[in-house]
């Protein structure tokens, strides 16, 4: 065995240690599953072995399945789905069920098995532990977490998680783990009865072994004769209302947009009425059904595979190597600057935080103090760690302290002259190879770069507010920005654990440009007489975190008013009024309704409660429509308005990589995550259908739905956005390809543009695919 070692002690207890070579983290890849089957067989048949303890040789126990491999495996089945759906699905079931049957064999091996969880155990890793008869967890590993992240990428815990957890703790206690991906620490796991005891790491193995010695006849509760489902199954007086309520509770939050949530509920409901073996088969079928759903495929691609790649600096120009950012200067200690200083100090970067006066600089640092104090109070960090973070931030007015920074983030008011003078002051001091980043959201980077003596080192680093909560950072290239500057900005963004996307220099860059379309569509509908509640609810049903009117309240209506006045004066006679203009004007000039900031906007605010302002009907030019549009129509308007703008940015070359456009849409402005992002949404719809529907929307509502010409050509040619703009994201392994029929391997090769025929040797074709990756 390569991934596991097995040592038998004098009492006949096998210590099985999971320690995959050449990997920093244990994951459940196909070859690992092969070995699990191997040692389970040994455990079952070797009379010298009386019981077993399973642990890990790494800091973490196991991070779960290998999603990339799963994706590759799936691609193989997908290739066969057209010609032989029955066979492909059956084989897919068998492939996925392997892990379930291995775990089932483990719990039925006839000998006591305990898991010694020395560190983090997620997904399949946690499920391996749940298939043991007892679990012990280290209480002195601060990184130890137990949980199921599957639902975050549109999957379900498919190695018994949906069956064993509810059978241990009941539906209501299992729900946060299964449906909300809640991660728990050792102590909480003990109090929830998922872990037998939490002990110091040094005593873990011995504690587990003692348990094994003392429980020679260990059996899972569900394999005992008189097993009762905790809290009651669906046909008991106590269980019925819980099962009935769970559907409502999950739909209330998810709007039914996430197929995984429905399938998790189905697994628990159907599984609770079946013996374990049958229940596991049902679980695997629902898991495979999700894998076949394009929403899941998109979510895995964007939220897992693309995110991992981009978070590591995937957008880095090929000519550049990653480096380290140790010290930065933040100029302007307002809310944005203070946020940048905070996240940087958290990541271990030294920060010189500059403002006009010492008081302003100190106030900026106070944000870190406030946020960290909250975390200390909640037990999320310690006073020592907080002190260390605070010590990294030096609030000052002295530009001299910038002499050894790697990078500057300028976050002062949106005023070109002010920014120009700051650029000069900083460049007088900072090292020649330091990069100057401006956090502007409205002024073109190339314009600001005119004030720079080193425009090749001048770049835009656009954060979203609040900085410590928003994960996206837009890196904006000016006309003269060098690859080196991009690479350094990425070094910074990855160090502070943001998702950095690289964008060309254009008004609104990428995210703001698209989100404006979202808010505008809200105004358009309001003006056309759609009921405000329908606009807001329709948007949330489409998967947006908040409705467009609610979002406008957060952004502030007076800001929209100022931009409107500015644009009018900039364009003069050429200005064409939009449907939002009279609404914004009246809200500010007539009613002084600025939004959340003065507690009146499209909503009335009353503490935590808010309700739509009852007078909004006045903005419907021809009155509220007698015949209100369907929710489906509102949802289409909401999603298409944004996706079309995202498609425009790609067609114009503002953003080059569809992965970045998708990530930007979800993490920048909350575009419906179940779609995998704005670009994935177009591909999922199919460009042909997308263009046709957009044309209907143009005819009904206006030219905001006019697709870029490029899309029309692509529709004719049957292209996809990812096919045209993306790099292949599916990676195949040799073992997964070997399990696919030869003709299907050829198909995969051909789809990748490889010259291959069924007459060729399968091994050669596989070699070509592996080489092409």
């Amino acid at each position, binding site marked *: 065995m390569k991934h596991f070692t097995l040592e038998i002690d004098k009492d006949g207890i096998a210590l099985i240690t999971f320690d995959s070579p050449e990997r920093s983290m244990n994951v459940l890849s196909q070859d690992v599953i092969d070995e699990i089957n191997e040692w389970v067989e040994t455990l079952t048949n070797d009379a010298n072995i009386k019981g077993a303890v399973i642990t890990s040789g790494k800091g973490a126990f196991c991070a779960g399945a290998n999603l990339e491999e799963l994706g590759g495996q799936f691609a193989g089945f997908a290739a066969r789905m057209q010609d032989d759906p029955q066979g492909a699905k059956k084989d897919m079931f068998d492939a996925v069920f392997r892990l379930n049957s291995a775990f089932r064999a483990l719990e039925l091996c006839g000998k006591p098995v305990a898991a010694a969880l020395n560190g983090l155990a997620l997904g399949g890793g946690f499920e391996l532990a749940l298939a043991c008869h007892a679990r012990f967890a280290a209480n002195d590993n601060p990184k130890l977490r137990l949980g199921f992240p599957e639902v975050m990428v549109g999957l379900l815990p498919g190695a018994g998680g949906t069956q064993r957890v509810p059978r241990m703790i009941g539906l209501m206690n299992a729900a946060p783990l299964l449906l909300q991906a809640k991660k728990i620490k050792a102590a909480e796991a003990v109090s929830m009865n998922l872990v037998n005891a939490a002990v110091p790491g040094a005593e873990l193995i011995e504690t587990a072994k003692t348990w094994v010695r003392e429980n020679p006849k260990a059996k899972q509760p569900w394999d005992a004769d008189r097993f009762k489902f905790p809290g009651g199954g669906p046909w008991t007086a106590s269980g019925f209302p819980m099962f009935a309520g769970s*559907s409502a509770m999950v*739909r209330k939050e998810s709007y039914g947009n996430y197929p995984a949530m429905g399938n998790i509920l189905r697994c628990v409901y159907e599984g609770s009425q079946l013996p374990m073996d049958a229940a596991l088969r049902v679980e695997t079928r629902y898991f495979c059904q999700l894998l076949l759903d394009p929403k899941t495929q998109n979510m895995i691609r964007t939220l897992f595979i693309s995110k991992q790649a981009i978070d590591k600096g995937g957008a880095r120009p090929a000519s550049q190597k990653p480096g380290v950012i140790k010290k930065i200067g933040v100029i302007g200690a307002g809310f944005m600057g203070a946020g940048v200083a905070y996240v940087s100090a958290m990541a271990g970067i030294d920060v010189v935080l500059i403002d006009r006066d010492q008081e302003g600089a100190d106030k900026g640092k106070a944000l870190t103090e406030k946020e960290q104090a909250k975390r200390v109070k909640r037990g999320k960090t310690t006073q020592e760690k907080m002190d260390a973070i605070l010590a990294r931030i030096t609030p000052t007015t002295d530009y001299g302290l910038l002499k050894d920074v790697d990078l500057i983030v300028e976050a002062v008011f949106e005023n070109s002259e002010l920014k120009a003078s700051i650029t000069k002051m900083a460049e007088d001091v900072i090292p020649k190879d330091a990069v100057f980043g401006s956090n502007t959201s409205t002024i073109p980077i190339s314009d600001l770069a005119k004030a720079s003596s080193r425009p090749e080192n001048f770049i835009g680093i656009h954060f979203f507010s609040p900085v410590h909560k928003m994960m996206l950072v837009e890196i904006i290239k000016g006309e003269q920005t060098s690859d080196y500057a991009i690479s350094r900005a990425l070094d910074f963004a990855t160090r502070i654990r943001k998702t950095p996307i690289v964008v060309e220099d254009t008004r609104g860059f990428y995210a703001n440009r698209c989100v404006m379309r979202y808010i505008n569509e809200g105004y358009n509908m309001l003006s056309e007489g759609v*009921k405000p509640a329908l606009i807001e*609810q329709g948007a949330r049903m489409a998967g947006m975190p908040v409705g467009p009117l609610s979002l406008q309240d957060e952004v502030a209506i007076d800001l929209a008013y100022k931009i409107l006045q500015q644009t009018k004066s900039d364009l003069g006679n050429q200005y064409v009024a939009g449907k939002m203009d009279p609404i914004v004007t009246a809200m500010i000039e007539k009613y002084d309704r600025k939004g959340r900031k003065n507690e009146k906007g499209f909503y009335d605010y009353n503490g935590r409660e808010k309700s739509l302002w009852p007078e909004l009907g006045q903005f419907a030019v021809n009155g509220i429509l007698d015949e209100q549009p369907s929710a489906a129509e509102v949802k289409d308007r909401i999603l298409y308005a944004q996706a079309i703008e995202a498609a425009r940015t790609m067609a114009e070359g503002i953003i080059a990589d569809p992965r970045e456009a998708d990530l930007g849409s979800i993490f920048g402005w909350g575009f419906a995550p179940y779609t995998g992002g704005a670009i994935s949404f177009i591909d999922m719809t199919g460009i042909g259908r997308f263009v046709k529907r957009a044309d209907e929307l143009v005819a009904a509502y206006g030219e905001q739905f006019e697709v870029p010409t490029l899309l029309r050509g692509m529709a004719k040619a049957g292209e996809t956005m990812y096919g045209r703009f993306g790099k292949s994201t599916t990676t195949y392994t040799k073992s997964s390809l070997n399990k696919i029929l030869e003709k299907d391997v050829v198909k995969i090769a051909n789809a990748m543009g490889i010259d291959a025929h069924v007459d060729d040797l399968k091994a050669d074709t596989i070699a070509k695919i592996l080489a092409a990756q």
Partner: protein
Amino acid sequence: MTKAFIYDAIRTPRGKGKKNGSLHEITALSLATQQLEALRDRNNLDTSKVDDVILGCVHQVKGQGADIARSAVITANWDEKCAGVSINRFCASGLEAVNMAAAKVMSGMSDMVVGGGVESLSRIPMGSDGGAMGVDPSISFDHHMIPQGISADLIATKWGYSRDDVDAYAVESQKRAANAWDGGRFKKSIVPVKDQMGVNILEHDELMRPGTDMQALGGLNPAFAMMGEMMPGFDFIAMQKYPELESINHVHHAGNSSGIVDGASLVLVGSKKAGKKQGLKPRARIRAFAEIGTEPTIMLTGPEAVARKCLGKAGMEIGDIDIWEINEAFASVVLQSMEELGVDHSIMNVNGGAIAMGHPLGVTGAMIIGTMVDELERADKQTALITLCVGGGMGSAIIIERV
């Protein structure tokens, strides 16, 4: 096609559907048995000439399981040739049983059939039969299923009925029911329930609260606000189907919703020839009947849709109906039906309804057919349309005509 006639219609008084209700100590089987005995005895019925007994019953488990209709035929000592079948169309089961009886007669495949219902909610409460509809995510999660009370409040919200509107309707129901009892309008069809010794244990509807006024109702808390707004939050599921609503106005409570009661009821249906052979005089003719499915989340808008469908089958107009009966499941259901059909309250539920007297689920449809047979004769009217809203988004209706 053979014409189907109603020869008799009887019911038990309605007992409170709780442990302190007068009928709690009487089994559902006994309720059905006593009704069958009474129907036979007061009509001198040769039960060997009755093809089938169809009983509506929503909760067909425990004492109501295993085909309670056949069980009751045996215990009532009816001729063994008479079969029995129990059916479930939720709240319209009793009416549906009569419709099915009529269909058998009209097709010529049966000559005389009993339709009716039995339900002891005090012994076998709501929810006792489980069911996928509320708990299987493939329907409850995927198809926005919500409890009826939320649907009733959703109707009130969508049609703009205030708390005062629904309470006023309830006050009127109590007034009319009290008047009807005082005027002896139910005496033709009421058959008292006897106890194990043969002593009358219940002779009148015991849930009624005559003299209920707006003030008394005003003190009641909305019954569905908690489950709607808080746990588990069914309002949000309703609003995902009706996204133009910003919130649900919870107006229903125990005083303006149908009461939970026990009872049984029978309607004797047969062809002209079959009645003549037994020396029976027809009291009404069944002109038409219908059933329909409607939007399942709002669930309770079936009466209007099925009434229109039924009128269409009968070749009649709304104005051709002299008196109407729409089950008072919730006040908003009747208000919405009246508004959409344009039927005046003066000819709707003239003797009160389930808000005052109670709603023994699978029975009510048969009971209110009987009420209308009696009322057509008493008031010297010709036509009546009887309908109920139904769980899962359905409606059932029947049009009868005095002969």
